[in-house]
């Protein structure tokens, strides 16, 4: 058990490090440094500046952002005349990647290129809304897919299934737009507020009902698009389990059909659903990107999308790193849940 635990942990760390490093190199080596510098130079330099002043300002901006040192341990060497000249030059530890990673390990995620605020605070502020959005959706998805799956398995309604599949085929943003069109537009039913979080700083503590009313449509769109997969999967697993002999034995023992299903078949049918659980949180985080843009919620997804559009790499990398870590933790949790739920797996060689 302990060996499996540590190998899993090592794998988690390795994958997270690999992805973050890859994204770091991929986003920094693209030729867009000039736009970045232009933006910074324009804010601090008077309009009628000479070319030389602009250059000085750009050099200062590069130094402030730490872009004046090499990117990675190796840089491309200059073209030389010597036969078999090395293509790469070793630059030592004074490089952007080393500096960024060592700061990250000390818990310092740097500052946003756009606003100059510390990235950690930006992420914390945005996560406040996103965590309530995703946790509410996750709880609703888990709570609703269970009875829905049982109902589908027992009754097998064609119409309900067709509706579920139609919801599943539509992209998330279309469902969100349809909800906006029908439930929050002045022409139809204006039941819910359409955009944002209302007037300044509505928080859960000060006005819970008001705060929740702003979350109804975003949560509804996440739940509606996400519910088909777990419900249909559970229904399929239940249909397989119901036909097995142990259910027949339970019925022969005198249990009613509903009770045999609930107390015997359901446990076995729930096992494959653990796999879906691992995808749930990361997928909801990705979905929050779309939903927060549509409903103008100041959350994590919107922060990431805006950071990507503005090439604000410190924010982008920290956000992506967070998603990767959440994903790895949920994978790891699922493994533990499997071992808890199914004793047969514990003795199997890894």
């Amino acid at each position, binding site marked *: 058990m302990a060996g499996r635990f540590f190998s899993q942990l090592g794998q988690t760390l390795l994958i997270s490090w690999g992805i973050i490093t890859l994204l770091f190199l991929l*986003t920094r080596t693209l030729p867009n440094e000039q736009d970045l510098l232009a933006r910074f130079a324009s804010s601090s330099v008077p309009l009628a500046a000479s070319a030389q002043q602009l250059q000085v300002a750009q050099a200062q901006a590069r130094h402030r952002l730490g872009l004046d040192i090499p990117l990675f341990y190796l840089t491309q060497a200059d073209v030389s005349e010597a036969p078999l000249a090395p293509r790469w030059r070793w630059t030592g530890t004074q490089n952007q990647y080393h500096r960024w990673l060592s700061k990250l390990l000390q818990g310092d995620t740097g500052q946003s290129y756009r606003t100059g605020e510390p990235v950690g605070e930006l992420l914390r502020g945005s996560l406040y809304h996103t965590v309530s959005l995703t946790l509410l959706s996750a709880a609703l998805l888990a709570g609703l897919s269970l009875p829905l799956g049982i109902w589908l398995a027992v009754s097998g309604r*064609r119409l309900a299934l067709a509706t579920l599949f139609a919801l599943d*085929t539509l992209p998330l943003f279309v469902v969100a*737009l349809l909800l*906006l069109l029908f439930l929050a537009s002045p022409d139809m039913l204006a039941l819910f507020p359409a955009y944002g979080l209302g007037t300044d700083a509505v928080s859960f503590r000060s006005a819970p009902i008001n705060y929740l009313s702003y979350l109804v449509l975003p949560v509804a769109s996440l739940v509606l698009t996400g519910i088909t997969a777990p419900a249909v999967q559970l229904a399929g697993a239940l249909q397989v389990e119901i036909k097995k002999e142990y259910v027949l034995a339970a019925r022969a023992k005198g249990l009613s059909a509903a009770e045999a299903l609930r107390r015997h078949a359901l446990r076995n049918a729930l096992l494959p659903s653990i796999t879906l659980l691992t995808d749930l949180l990361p997928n909801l985080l990705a979905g929050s990107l779309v939903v927060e*843009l549509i409903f103008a919620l100041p959350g994590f997804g919107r922060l990431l999308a805006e950071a990507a559009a503005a090439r604000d790499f410190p924010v982008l990398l920290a956000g992506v790193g967070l998603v990767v870590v959440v*994903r790895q933790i949920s994978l790891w949790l699922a493994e533990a849940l499997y071992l808890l739920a199914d004793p047969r797996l514990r003795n199997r060689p890894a």
Partner: protein
Amino acid sequence: MTSTGLRTKRNWSWHLSLGWLLLLAAAALLADLFSLPTGPDLLRSNAAPLTPGHLLGTDSQGQDVLRGMLYGARTALLVSIPTTLLASALGTALGVAAGYWGNTRLRIPKHWLGSVAVALIFYIFFAAPANSVLAGWWPWCTAGGGLLLSVALSRFSQWRTTVALPVDSLVSAAIVFLAALPRLLLVVLVATAVTPSVTTLVLLLTLTFWVPTARLIRAEVRRIRWLPYLEAAVALGLPAHQILLRHVLPNCWHVVRTAVPLSLAILISLETTLSFLGVGLPPELPSWGRLLAAGRIAPSCWWLIVFPTIALLLTALSLRRLVAAPEPHSRVLQAP
């Protein structure tokens, strides 16, 4: 999916689905033949459907919605069809390799492996002297050197022994690596960083989209691998490429055939999502996602939301209908 999933019943809904898809393809191909208003009609912006000259109305810029729908169909197919084909090909190749050879059965002679490694290291770490004749031919020089080295090494018996290449582990590692980020997030992040164009988007989607096909094919080939007819083919001494092309591939073809329409549907919805977010495709390219984005800004113009939604829904359901059985609760639920 076993062979029961193969035969879809061809009743009226199957024909309807096929008809809609053909209509979509025709709209995408023949969009230039209709004489539709091209520029913005500034006199009639936000016009409702059935306005003279604009059958499906216009958006807030006065652009014709029907034109956006037709050219949007073209964009959707232009992105999704090449991506599906490329991703299926890549996924099939990797899945077959991982499933057939596993971790131990692809054995490569040491002299071959060693010379490739030396040539690669040479190419990556050293440059030819600039301004010399060699500069343009450097890749060919290193490749030729590697070939010579391999011939030379093969004379020694200890270099002629073989080592196993862990294909299965390599493919699985790539899958785990790609699965570490949700696909939508990954595509959005990379697509914002590169210059938007159809080619880069197709390449990016291909590189992230081969995973499901590879998984399915790998599982299927691992099943086929130990069937008697394949053992017979191996025992006959057929070369690997002949076994793969004539015995393995035809038997996992049905997996690809069911996976292609489904991934086409997913890619079309991904393309509209990206266009809706304004990511990955040049802004002047019309798309259903852009119509929907215009509808978000003007929520009272229902026609901007309803028509693209209907088109998306019909397309996705038709593609699904082509592979799924007509009674969803009996057959789809039984699929593992």
